[in-house]
């Protein structure tokens, strides 16, 4: 031990033996925030609503098997229907909406509930708070979505027996991966909106249902959206109408993965930087 180190006053220690003059290490802090946020997120009214929204295809699958398939002439195969559920329902609508309502609230809820003070006064880095909450969001939404996708797959594709189901399985695994990637990409974007804007839900809805329509335009414009990349990664191509039918394009998978990866890193990095440097003044 050097002389200077020996002369330094002893670091204040808590009962656990941690150096209290320094913030809690990032992984430990993020894990603690994750545990706390997960408990709050999974058992919440929002999650109940999202569970209904994301689990709707299961109810539809049961209805299809029980009633529709036996009474109506099938206009599309059951696998086409599954593809429609994935491409139109989950990828284009339900998952972005789930990401919007969860991710924009990661920090905004704490500010609105005036509990952010308690969070920020703890000896943890702000980046760890954001990371832990984002991880909790991802786990919560994935827990609600992935089982629903798996159950929907088996409900819809086994309508006429198990023959040929094996051939569809690669699509299931691909869909599960794309679902997680969609939650990550939109989650990162809406997390950034959540720390950037005071009321992020309306701009988020405008982004989803106005700006994302750019994906149906010709040329390079679709590359300015998130949906064009996630749509291109799945193999289901339900028939479109209007502009989408005329100009619909599928981007190369490698480009999609690179673009989505870059978006996730940039959006989360920007969100962490803004959250770390922003001063939160609570309204009295």
């Amino acid at each position, binding site marked *: 031990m050097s002389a200077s180190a020996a002369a330094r006053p002893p670091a204040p220690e808590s009962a656990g033996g941690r150096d209290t003059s320094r913030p809690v290490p990032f992984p430990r802090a993020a894990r603690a925030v994750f545990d706390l946020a997960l408990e709050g997120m999974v058992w919440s009214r929002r999650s109940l609503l999202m569970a209904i929204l994301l689990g709707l295809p299961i109810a539809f699958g049961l209805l299809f098997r029980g009633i529709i398939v036996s009474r109506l002439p099938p206009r599309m195969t059951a696998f086409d229907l599954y593809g429609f559920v994935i491409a139109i329902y989950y990828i284009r609508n339900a998952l972005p909406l789930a990401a919007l309502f969860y991710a924009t609230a990661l920090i905004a809820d704490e500010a609105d509930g005036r509990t952010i003070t308690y969070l920020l006064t703890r000896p943890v880095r702000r980046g760890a708070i954001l990371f832990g909450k984002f991880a909790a969001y991802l786990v919560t939404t994935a827990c609600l979505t992935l089982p629903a996708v798996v159950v929907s797959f088996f409900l819809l594709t086994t309508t006429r027996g198990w*023959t040929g189901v094996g051939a569809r399985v690669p699509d299931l*695994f691909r869909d599960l991966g794309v679902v997680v990637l969609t939650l990550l990409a939109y989650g990162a974007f809406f997390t950034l909106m959540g720390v950037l804007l005071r009321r992020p839900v309306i701009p988020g809805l405008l982004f989803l249902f106005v700006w994302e329509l750019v994906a149906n335009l010709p040329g390079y414009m679709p590359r300015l959206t998130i949906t064009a990349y996630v749509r*291109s990664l799945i193999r289901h191509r*339900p028939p479109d109408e209007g502009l989408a039918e*005329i100009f619909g*394009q599928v981007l190369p998978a490698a480009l999609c993965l690179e673009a989505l990866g870059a978006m996730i890193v940039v959006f989360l990095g920007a969100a962490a930087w803004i959250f770390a440097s922003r001063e939160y003044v609570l309204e009295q």
Partner: protein
Amino acid sequence: MTRSRTVVLGSALIVGAGALVALGAIYLDPARAAVGPLPPQALSLPAGTRFVMGLDVKRFVASPFYTRYSSAAGASARPQAFAELEEKTGLNPERDIDQVYVAGGQVPSGPRGADGLVVVTGRFDRYKVARAIETERKGVTSKTVQGITVYLFNEDRSGRGTGAVAFLDDSTIVLGAQSAVEQTVAARARGDVPLRSNTMLLGLIEGVKPGSTFWMVGDQTLLANLPKTIPAPGGPGSSQSLELPALKSLVVTGDLDPQVSLDLTGDTADEAAAKNLADVVRGLVALASLQANQKPELKQLASAVSVSTEATRVHVAARFPYELLDSIQPRSAPASASQPSSTP
């Protein structure tokens, strides 16, 4: 364990169980074969094969397409032909044939230069079939290749026939050009799998959706013979034509139940060619839509086709419900009109 952890664990268990069942479905699926939909015996096909087509006869016979249109085409002729075939060979195609594969090289170079091959798998009475081959037609001779009897049709003095047929094993018949049949028989007897060396074609076959009722793959050698242009939609007398980009490969898969589904994937030289080809197809579909004023059923036909591109690939997906196919058929067919509609 906290409540949230219980939810996460339950969710993970569902996904995990689903993944296991899915993997089991892959392993146990009867559509599994040696390479894609090809059975092991078809790997004895010559390495120079440029295209392969397949038809799942069981699925085809069970499809609404077969039940609707086979009876509509001639209610008496078909069973009679099948009855005669069954009487002579003991073979009922609807019952005994499982799969039919058609393979070929480039282009026939003459009456005896065709190198097409047909591989039929199913359950055969070898004695009856062999006897029918020997007695039903004149000019049938036979020779032995690697211990397997090959029947030759119209063998000339140089020992070449216009066609040949042989049993690869009890459940597989190969017929077609003599040289190709002999190559296949010899390779099978030696245990060779020449088609394995055709990695390009095998790659395409592996991409075929297993369980398809019919499918076809072809590489650029075959596709080089496709027309380069098609007449522009200017009507008769129009001098313009649409230029079609060259295709490097083509994969077609289709199903007939519960509707006629067709998926075509063409690989072009570059992204621009893919977009060009997709535009041509979209243009044709749009033209069909424009005809909807005169023929309303064409509107449905146009909306049944979707076109998309993915880098150098063009995907065309078509879904035709039987009601739509019925509506665009000539009204004069009384047999089809008498078919009960599936709509309630």
